[in-house]
């Protein structure tokens, strides 16, 4: 009964608990008790006195009662004196170093035509924890140092073992810029994309956990992720297996034989990405954007780019021997900016026409004050990151294991230097990698006379484009073109998910190629197809195929468009329906992932005042019919003569005559 010492401390405390918010600092029970503890001889008496003061009643004026056994018990309680030794209490010690598993670095890479790719990577690891422990057990405590506190309960509650969340917008020009950063595995399709590996005993349970996960992430990242429902969720078979493979993901509930891992995937095509999604991401970092490279992350700058991608990856790692697990989280922000545009905005926040003297005219062509054929952009370029991000890096993070680094990947035709803003000094390094080791303000200066010279990062294994074909509002077609420009054949899995209102006819699948010798059977190694269920499940298609070297081919299929129910149309129904991008995962020669652009599907949209019009018209017709029937049944049927008579009797002249007759007869003048 460990708590007896606590109770002793509580009951003997002489402090007063002060009113809410009062600025008095109170004397804690602790000091009183510890001083008692120090004096062995007298402690027993005083302590027992303290216990009994509350126990002595007004009707007995007796002395305090000695309860030796209890006091003895308290005094011999092991650890008590050890923990509350009066000699070294209240200390804050300085250790040699305190470091936490957090890592951050930034890579800057110039791209052709004066574009610049900047990538921020933040890695953090959670404290170890025993899975399968109930957090309500009295000795269960969860500790957080650098891993975000918001995530762990979420992962535990939804049994999520792996979580990937992507916010991507813009166009990555693969033909000119080369492969996507991190071989495409860290960027999603345009909009929001979420996939997770969830442990559950059945598919239904997995879906419920997934729904709960989506709702929470929606709230946390201020995005419409809560619109993910069963009609948008698919269970990928070949794609999204991750680079570690299934075996590396631990099952927490091994005893239950039904327990299994489910991969769920959903995407919200063309969802707008903005500052409200970036700010929660920065809040997940231990530095909270106040120091290190995360100071650069400013919504105005990140989203003022040609292409940007925010990604969060969380993975569970377990040590089988110690039965302890930890989470690893990787947050990344990547963006491509067009340097001249951003610099111009830095210099002239309010856009205005370039002055005549600053125009760069093609001198080989006629030019004067009114005519100028512009030259291509200048290849001599010099700028600093502070110009691009509008601020300098503030200091370093002192609690991280390795200092934050900034690396610039360029050719030798670029001059890169690190500027320490505080003492205005410049530093250069051959590797072009700089470590931020001090709490100073830093800046990086990039300078080149030939900005066309950029580092090549290899070939893109495959190019994909996808488009809608056909016209009209009842059916359409979908055509995907794949191109392997390389010398080696490429094996890919092709993942597509369509909403239920797009009814794909797989029978209409045709393959066309430039040389004409590619057929469906030859091309597709395996295929997974799960047809849609109206309002419940999307169409889910996955192919594994091998594309021979130097081949371009296309495959297409037809689909029917369905009419939606009245309430299923979104408020901006005439905008059309966004169709999520297809995911191409390259398996060989090297792992790579890319996505097609999203599609905009136009469905026939009703006139939304229609229901009321229908009600009114049908009611009018019903009213008319009823009126006729009712009158036929109820009105008197007369002969023509009778009708004439009635008509005469009803005429005003007849009534006047009647009146006249009556008056005359009363006066006796009638004949």
């Amino acid at each position, binding site marked *: 009964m460990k708590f007896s010492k606590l*109770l002793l401390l509580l009951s003997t405390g002489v402090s007063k608990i002060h009113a*809410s918010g009062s600025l008095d*600092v109170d004397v804690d029970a602790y000091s009183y008790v510890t001083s008692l503890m120090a004096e062995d001889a007298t402690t027993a008496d005083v302590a027992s006195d303290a216990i009994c003061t509350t126990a002595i009643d007004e009707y007995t004026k007796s002395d305090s009662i000695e309860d030796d056994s209890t006091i003895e018990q308290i005094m011999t309680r092991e650890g008590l004196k050890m923990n509350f030794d009066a000699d070294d209490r*209240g*200390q*804050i010690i300085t250790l040699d170093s305190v470091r936490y598993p957090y890592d951050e670095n930034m890579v800057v890479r110039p791209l052709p035509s004066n574009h610049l790719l900047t990538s921020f990577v933040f890695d953090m690891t959670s404290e170890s924890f025993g899975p399968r422990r109930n957090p309500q057990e009295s000795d269960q405590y969860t500790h957080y140092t650098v891993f975000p506190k918001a995530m762990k309960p979420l992962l535990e509650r939804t049994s999520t073992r792996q979580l990937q969340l992507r916010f991507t917008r813009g166009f990555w020009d693969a033909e000119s810029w080369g492969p996507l950063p991190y071989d495409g595995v860290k960027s999603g399709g345009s909009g929001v994309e979420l996939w997770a590996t969830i442990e559950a005993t059945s598919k239904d349970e997995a879906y419920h956990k997934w729904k709960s996960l989506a709702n929470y992430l929606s709230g946390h990242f201020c995005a419409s992720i809560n619109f993910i429902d069963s009609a948008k969720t698919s269970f990928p078979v070949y794609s999204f297996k991750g680079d570690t493979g299934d075996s590396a993901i631990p099952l927490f509930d091994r005893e239950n034989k039904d327990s299994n891992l489910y991969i769920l995937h959903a995407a919200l095509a063309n969802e707008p990405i903005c500052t409200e999604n970036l700010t929660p991401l920065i809040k997940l970092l231990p530095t909270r954007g106040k120091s290190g490279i995360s100071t650069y992350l400013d919504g105005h700058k990140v989203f003022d780019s040609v292409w940007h991608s925010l990604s969060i990856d969380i993975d569970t790692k377990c040590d089988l021997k110690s039965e302890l697990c930890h989470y690893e989280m990787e947050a990344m922000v990547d963006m491509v900016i067009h340097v001249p545009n951003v610099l111009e905005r830095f210099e002239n926040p309010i856009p205005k026409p370039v002055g005549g003297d600053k125009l760069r005219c093609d001198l080989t062509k006629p030019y004067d004050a009114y005519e100028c054929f512009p030259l291509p952009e200048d290849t001599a370029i010099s700028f600093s990151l502070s110009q691009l991000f509008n601020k300098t890096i503030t200091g370093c993070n002192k*609690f991280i294991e390795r200092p934050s680094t900034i690396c610039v990947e360029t050719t030798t035709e670029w001059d890169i230097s690190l500027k320490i803003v505080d003492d205005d000094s410049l530093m250069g390094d051959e590797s072009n990698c700089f470590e931020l080791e001090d709490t100073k303000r830093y800046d990086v200066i990039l300078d080149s006379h030939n900005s066309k010279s950029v580092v090549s990062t290899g070939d893109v294994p495959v190019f994909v484009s996808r488009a809608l074909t056909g016209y009209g509002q009842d059916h359409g077609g979908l055509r995907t073109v794949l191109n392997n420009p390389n010398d080696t054949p490429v094996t890919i899995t092709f993942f597509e998910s369509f909403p239920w209102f797009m009814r794909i006819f797989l029978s209409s699948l045709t393959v066309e190629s430039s040389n004409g010798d590619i057929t469906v059977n030859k091309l597709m190694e395996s295929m997974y197809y799960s047809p849609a269920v109206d309002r419940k499940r999307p169409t889910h298609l996955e192919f594994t195929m091998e594309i021979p070297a130097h081949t371009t081919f296309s495959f297409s299929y037809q689909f029917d468009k369905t009419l939606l129910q009245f309430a299923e149309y979104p408020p901006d129904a005439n905008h059309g329906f966004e169709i999520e991008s297809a995911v191409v995962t390259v398996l060989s020669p090297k792992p790579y992932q890319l996505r097609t652009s999203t599609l905009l599907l136009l469905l026939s949209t009703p006139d939304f005042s229609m229901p009321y019009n229908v009600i009114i018209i049908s009611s009018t017709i019903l*009213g008319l019919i009823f009126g006729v029937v009712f009158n036929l*049944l109820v009105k008197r049927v007369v002969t023509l003569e009778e009708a004439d008579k009635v008509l005469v009797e009803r005429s005003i*002249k007849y009534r006047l005559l009647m009146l006249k007759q009556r008056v005359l007869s009363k006066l006796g003048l009638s004949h």
Partner: protein
Amino acid sequence: MTSLITLRKSVALSFVALYLLIGVPLWYKLTTIYRASLPIEYIQDLYNNKFKEIHLTIPVFVKSDTYRFPDIHDAVQIQVNHLLRSKRQYVDWSLEIFPYNETIIDQATARGDDYHIVDLVLDEFVGYNLPYDSKTTIVYFDDTSVASNDLPFFIAQTLVEHTFELEWNHWSLKPDQNEPEQLANSDIAVNYNPNIHLSMSLLNGDGSPVAWEIDNTLKNIFTPFREMISPLVNFTVDAQIAYYNDLNLYQLNNVSNPTWHDLSHVIDLSELSTTNYFVEQNAINLVIVFPGKETNLDGLQFVNTNEENQWGSFIVPQWGVLIVNKSPLEDNALVTENYLNPIMLKFVKDLLRLLGVLDTKDKELSSPYIVIDSVKRIRIIDNLNKAVETLWSLIKLTHQFQQMAIPQEVLEDITNALDMRLELIDLLNNPHVGSNMDWNKALLMSNEIVKSCEKAFFHGEMLQQNFFPQEHKLAVYLPLLGPLSVVIFSGVKALFNEKKSESEEDITSKDEKKGLEEDIAEELKETKELGAIDDKDSISTPASTD
């Protein structure tokens, strides 16, 4: 002629009858909102006579080792009843005094359970003691008190006024009082919930690396507390270190002589409050904040320190405890267990107030088992009260909004809650049931009842339908109902008017009429000749002219 009119009349009336007897009820039935029939009268009765059927009994065993008192329990019972009757009770409660029965107690001990026991100890004086580690009341007596037959009264007084002090104070009403006072200052305590999350944070004003020995402190001090209070509240606890957050306290250094008003204006708790655990509804925070070195090199001047503690502690009502440290931390500082222990003790004490267990400022928890047991009972009664209040609000709401749907699930939840309530009351009223586990069970049941009632009250469909305006119904049906009603009722009216005019005609004498008709026919003939009426057919029949 008459038979034709009767037929027409009956046709028209059958239309009206069809309209009124079948059409209107059918339309009403088909367009009306589903409202399950709630046990309104029963709930109203419960609300008006709260705790009418409750007679809470707490069994107490009297044990005497030295002397044998064969009838002491009866004597104490009489005294206890007398004492309890001296004040008006909010909830009818009483103690059931039993002689010490070893088998019952041993059985209870075997399953880890216990009862209230009064231990009579012969001593040289009369007194009592409530030990801190059990549910026993030790009453000391001397021979004089036995001889003068004072002992039963002493025992009764000890039990009612000391052992069951909380019940006695809480449930006894003053003459002008109708409801008992709140258990704790409700402005500080969070709403009672059996599951509460505790969030402990070490905030550092800047980015200098910090470590703390919180795990040891928690395991040594907080775990025993959690075990002790677990029948009442279950906690989930997390501890985090956060950098670059000093709750804006640095702003206070510019203020001379800041008061707690300034503090409450300046502190920004938003970032801590938004990252709460999302399973539990309630969260209590302990925040230990160190100022940043850059902003406050000399520390926060307003924090009064003494040689023992370098921090000040503040309760933020319904939120948690704020510990403000005076000086900033050095780089690589380790906040040791010895620094954290007093903070944790202070927090535990404040936590009792935040949970509503301790109600007065300077009271100490001397006999926690007994107090927690009493708090359990008070919570049970409060929960029952809360459940009935919730149900009554629901009834009032449904009464006020006639257009509000009442789904079947709401009725099921209410029935479930009311059934459980009866079950719980049976348990409370049983004088033989009253061990520790029974109270835990009763508390769990009462929590369930509250949950069920709240589930019924917050059913999503009830409020959703409420905002569907009644005019819409009219707008949709008016194009159909309007023409139908106009046709039917104007037709019937015309029919009855027609009959009336015909009967008027019957009244005028036939002769007169005939004479008149002849006259008119002549006159008409004249006028026709004059060309005033050019329509040939409009003249009366030739028979009448003859």
